């Protein structure tokens, strides 16, 4: 089952020999834009590689003199390690907070809220996606961080045995946990919007069949809506994760960064993400330091790719449940 049904369809169509006239033109337009995207994106990737190359091939002594933040006698891998860790930790935490919430909201809009209300509510959530990240940064800095300080210190005091809450809670609240919340709020609308559209497309027959068997609303959701939407939810979560991994401004403005492998998300000066790191040091960087920053960007690519491929593998395995076709 590697071919999706539409592709099988396309083959069938061709076999009937109807690929003539405007059909052919349209197909070439579609293929053309695919090729164009491939060209552009490959160009970006090549550009990145070209720019990152001097840093990747330079010795660690050379890098240590050119890049102020580069510790001496460290390989490039050891240098980006903490950044990769911080990036993944922030994104995973954000995803863990946002995904269940987003599914709940999407269900609320598609199956729970009164129909008249649901569209308006949908716009309200979409509005969150529209807020630029600079504003999330300002809000996180001025409003959220001071607000969560007592909550974080409470968690630290009473649930400190849990590895994530260990350490010493920061008095300013500008820590990874706060960043994760802001990232979660930022990706919430993306996951919600896609899941909502998927849930709304649940075949009426499936739903009616469940209702006819006497299912409650939750059972309807569990037996008809969620299995149908599973691959859509995963794709939605991956779109959100992409944004969380690459988010710059909000992290930059809120987090008090550090370069450690640490699970203490309530402690300041522990973590840093790749995107924020690049933006922090890029303005003052010149020469090899710029190449090094771009090389760290390349690492972000690799992470994103791995995450996406993982997601695609999951979706492919679950294909039999995605009842669209």
């Amino acid at each position, binding site marked *: 089952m590697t071919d999706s049904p539409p592709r099988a369809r396309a083959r069938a169509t061709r076999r009937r020999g109807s690929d003539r006239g405007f059909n052919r033109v349209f197909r070439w337009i579609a293929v053309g834009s*695919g090729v164009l995207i491939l060209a552009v994106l490959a160009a970006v990737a090549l550009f990145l590689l070209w720019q990152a190359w001097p840093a990747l091939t330079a010795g660690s002594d050379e890098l240590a003199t050119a890049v102020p933040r580069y510790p001496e006698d460290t390989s490039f891998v050891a240098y980006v390690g903490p950044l990769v860790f911080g990036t993944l930790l922030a994104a995973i935490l954000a995803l863990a907070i946002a995904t269940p919430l987003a599914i709940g909201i999407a269900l609320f809009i598609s199956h729970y809220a009164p129909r008249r209300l649901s569209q308006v509510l949908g716009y309200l959530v979409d*509005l969150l996606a529209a807020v630029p990240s600079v504003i999330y940064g300002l809000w996180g800095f001025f409003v959220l961080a001071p607000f969560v300080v007592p909550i974080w210190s409470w968690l630290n005091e009473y649930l400190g045995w849990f590895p994530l809450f260990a350490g010493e809670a920061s008095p300013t609240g500008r820590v990874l946990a706060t960043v994760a919340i802001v990232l979660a709020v930022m990706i919430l609308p993306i996951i919600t919007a896609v899941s909502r559209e998927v849930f709304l497309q649940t075949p009426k027959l499936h739903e009616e069949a469940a209702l006819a068997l006497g299912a409650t609303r939750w059972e309807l959701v569990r037996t008809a809506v969620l299995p149908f939407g599973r691959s859509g939810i995963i794709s939605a979560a991956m779109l959100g994760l992409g944004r969380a991994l690459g988010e710059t401004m909000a992290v930059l403005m809120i987090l008090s960064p550090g370069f450690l492998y640490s699970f203490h998300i309530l402690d300041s000066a522990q973590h840093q993400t790749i995107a924020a790191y690049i933006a922090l040091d890029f303005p003052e960087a010149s020469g090899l330091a710029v190449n090094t920053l771009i090389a760290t960007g390349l690492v972000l690519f690799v992470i994103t790719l791995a995450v996406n491929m993982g997601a695609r593998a999951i979706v492919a395995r679950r294909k039999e449940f995605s009842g669209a076709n």
Partner: protein
Amino acid sequence: MSATTAHPPTAESTERVRSMLTAAHPGRKRVDRTMTVLVWGAFALAMVPLISLLWTVTSNGIGRISMDFLTLSMRNIFGGDPTGGIYHAIMGTLIITGLATLISVPIGVLTAIYLVEYGRGALARSVTFFVDVMTGIPSIVAGLFAVALFTLILGPAARFGLIGAVALSVLMIPVVVRSCEEMLKLVPNELREAAYALGVPKWLTIVKVVLRTSVAGLTTGVLLAIARVIGETAPLLVAVGVTDSINTNPFEGRMMTLPVFAYRQYSQGLATCPGGESATCIPDIALQNAWGAALVLIVLVLLLNIIGRLVNRWFSPKLR
């Protein structure tokens, strides 16, 4: 492959549903009620940051909004001078984001069509691969790429709106492709088959059936993609530069955009007022400007959303 076999009610799943339905009644009701509360709760919880954000931006920004603020630029305005406005930034945002949308949406949607309706083999796989990689591009890299591309052709000093639009497109295209691909996949195959059975050519089926059926989803996808890039600062600073004057020509000269304006104003911090605070010199005017610009940006996106929904309603098939 026909519609009835694609989602077969296996013996196992039928059994599961039956056993579930014959389970103890009060328990089922309780679960249902709990989940209803949880779902409502999830929604209520999401409203908290939304309302807090909107309140923060509105209460801080509304005081700055006036006719002057919306229709003047910042040319020759500096320090604590409370006159001037963000007209240049509004126009810059509309033009650059508009251009980026014009570039990305046709390409993105057509590629999604290609992937869902035609794609197979190495080309489709490599498109998917690169789209996946590109969703993680750090935004400043997109800016650097666009600058490198244009300066290669036009010499080192080239900085204008179109470069920014290209940079934003690089960020936008993957989002458009990924979300539209998902929406096109949702169109039931029965609809396509019905159209073919009536002798409708494939291209017409795609335009009239597939696209029209999924128009709501496509609109959502495009709006998400616009929202993704309309708030960008770093790539625009590198690719377009900044200006205080009005420039509506995206092919020549620097432009200002709302997020860049808001960020730069926030970064400037307090102004020095030699004679103390007065009507002509307000120390924290830059921060007020930043909040004002943020409010305008949010309203702009809200308007955009409303227009999108209107278009969407207009085109989507009337099912009920």
